[in-house]
């Protein structure tokens, strides 16, 4: 049966009034050996939970909005939303993103080219509320009716018969957390409308004006990072404990005695890692240390609060929190007097620190920031490391993190590296700037609450998992170990959850990890077996 489609402007409003659950039978089908795969249904939010938390129109909980305690509170929140919307549309209050926001608000010709570009819309089996233009259209109607002069006259005739009440706001807020901000839609749009940016601006409005944001990004994200030092909760003492353990681990595995440097003034590079690496993928930080030492590079980590965690979740939802963290990163680099900042394998930190901050940071704080992929390319292709690619004699494919590739155009360095170290490398299709998001983008991979992880594995990550299976179709049997190289902590978290849900390590022998681990695994001067092939 076809899903009902929005045929006219009025339909959109009616559609917003209906809730549509996710039907596992409609999800995009998977190839061999998953033709008969039966998805477990997405966990339902209980009646008890619904007394505390608002639920999205698809039955999923992402923003985790507290249920207002009274009608007055609802009215107050609606009024705050309108006030925030007015601000969002003025230069004084939104000098950062007003221009692209207005261009996107005004120029959409509703051609729907973006729809088929979206892995969530297609992966879900074409659920209307996930169409990239859907939430944008809701916002346009609200602006037309409630902000523009005369908008309240003849709303039905103008197709603006949308009622701005608390229920509508809940739907809009939740739907702004059903898009990974991968911006594949913007890339495909013939007129350059950016529905990803528009979604991000909706999140910003809710966060800055109503205090509504996914708690994993805000309360235990940026707020925790700015107070404790890291969104993981890691304090400086814990950091040192981890580094001591990492040094021992490096010695156990390689025989090398490496002292991980901290707070070295005037070093060539301040390396900014996502602190998630320290806790969940310590082999990544170890591999970085091994490579930089082997190449004789002067580098340092920072032990200062925020300086040892490159994440900046503000990029995903809030300009103010974003700026606080970006400033802190640059202040720390400036104080240390390092020549350059090297961004580790974290996609959004690349964009937050290199691309966005570069346009906002005052000159007095400016420090050159460089992608690790570019720096590593120099080391690998200039033969400063002795490499034996036969050590990586297994199928490897590359996942392109959206922020590094589509948003920043860093495409070739990682491929030039793989050409030197992975003889059985194959591309996913499509790849590079046309890649598909892992499904955990815009911080989704860090949300482990309620039924959101179910949605991430079944819906937003579905197309990516399909792509991975297709890339390895020639050797899908579990006896052949295969490696999805994902040079981004957030993407790795999503890969882990995807491969676990689909049981792909047991069924297909598919493992995931970063890029530096593959480089070290191919280093001829290191004992064989840096990659341990233990799923974690």
């Amino acid at each position, binding site marked *: 049966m076809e899903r009902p489609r929005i045929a006219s402007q009025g339909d959109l409003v009616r559609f917003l009034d209906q809730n549509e659950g996710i039907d596992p039978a409609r999800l995009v089908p998977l190839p061999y050996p998953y033709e008969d795969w039966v998805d477990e249904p997405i966990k339902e939010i209980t009646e008890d939970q619904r007394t505390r938390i608002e639920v999205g129109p698809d039955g999923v909980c992402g923003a985790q909005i507290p249920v207002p305690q009274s009608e007055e509170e609802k009215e107050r929140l609606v009024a705050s939303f309108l006030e925030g919307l007015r601000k969002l549309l003025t230069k004084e209050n939104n000098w950062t993103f007003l221009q692209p926001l207005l261009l996107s608000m005004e120029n959409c010709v509703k051609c729907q080219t973006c729809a088929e570009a979206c892995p969530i819309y297609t992966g879900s089996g074409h659920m209307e509320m996930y169409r990239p233009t859907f939430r944008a259209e809701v916002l346009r109607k609200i602006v037309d009716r409630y902000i523009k002069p005369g908008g309240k006259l003849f709303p039905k005739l103008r197709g603006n018969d949308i009622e701005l009440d608390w229920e509508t706001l809940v739907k809009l807020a939740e739907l702004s957390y059903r898009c990974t901000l991968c911006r594949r839609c913007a890339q495909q749009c013939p007129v350059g409308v950016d529905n990803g940016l528009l979604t991000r601006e909706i999140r910003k409005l809710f966060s800055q004006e109503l205090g509504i944001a996914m708690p994993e990004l805000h309360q*235990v994200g940026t707020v925790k990072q700015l107070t404790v030092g890291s969104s993981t*909760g890691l*304090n400086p003492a814990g950091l040192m404990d*981890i580094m001591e353990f990492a040094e021992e681990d490096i010695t156990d595995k390689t025989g090398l005695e490496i002292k991980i440097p901290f707070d070295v003034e005037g070093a060539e590079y301040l390396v900014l890692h996502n602190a998630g690496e320290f806790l*969940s993928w310590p082999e990544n930080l170890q591999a970085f240390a091994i490579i930089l030492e082997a190449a004789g590079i002067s580098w340092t980590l920072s032990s200062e609060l925020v300086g040892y965690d490159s994440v900046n979740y503000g990029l995903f939802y809030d300009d103010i929190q974003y700026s606080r963290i970006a400033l802190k990163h640059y202040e720390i680099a400036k104080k240390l007097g390092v020549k350059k900042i090297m961004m580790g394998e974290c996609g959004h930190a690349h964009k937050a620190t290199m691309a966005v901050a570069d346009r906002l940071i005052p000159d007095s704080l400016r420090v050159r920031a460089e992608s690790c992929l570019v720096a590593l390319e120099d080391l690998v292709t200039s033969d400063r490391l002795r490499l034996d690619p036969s050590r990586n004699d297994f199928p490897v494919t590359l996942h392109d993190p959206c922020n590094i590739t589509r948003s920043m155009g860093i495409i070739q360095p990682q491929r030039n590296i793989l050409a030197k170290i992975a003889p059985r490398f194959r591309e996913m299709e499509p790849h590079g700037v046309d890649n598909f998001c892992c499904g955990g983008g815009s911080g989704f991979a*860090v949300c482990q609450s309620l039924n959101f992880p179910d949605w991430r594995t079944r819906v937003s990550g579905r197309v990516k998992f399909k792509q991975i299976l297709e890339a390895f179709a020639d050797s899908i049997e579990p006896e052949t170990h295969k490696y999805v190289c994902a040079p981004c902590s957030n993407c790795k978290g999503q890969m882990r959850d995807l491969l676990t849900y689909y049981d792909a390590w047991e069924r297909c022998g598919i493992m995931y990890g970063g890029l530096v681990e593959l480089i070290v695994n191919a280093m001829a001067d290191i004992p064989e077996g840096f990659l341990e092939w233990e799923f*974690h």
Partner: protein
Amino acid sequence: MPTFTHGEVSIEVDEDGFMQEPEGWNEVVAHALASTEGVDDLTDEHWKVVNYLREYYLQFGVAPMIRKLCKETGFNLKRIYELFPSGPAKGACKVAGLPKPTGCV
């Protein structure tokens, strides 16, 4: 905030059943939380994991790396999954009274 009640235990938890105030944890609470994780009996092996997680958390504010947990307890990851079917982060940490892990972990 939901309240989790089991026998005489009554504690505030988050929507996924993790303790909100880790300082209120004790062995009776651990047994109660274990019941939500399909662990009916806490053996010496369970306690080894739980106590290590607990001590580490109180000292450093986070759960230890899984690799370190394995090394210090002598259990491989497979064994930890056998002890706590939801795994080290979602299972063992919950029983040890740690809050839900945060950040890109």
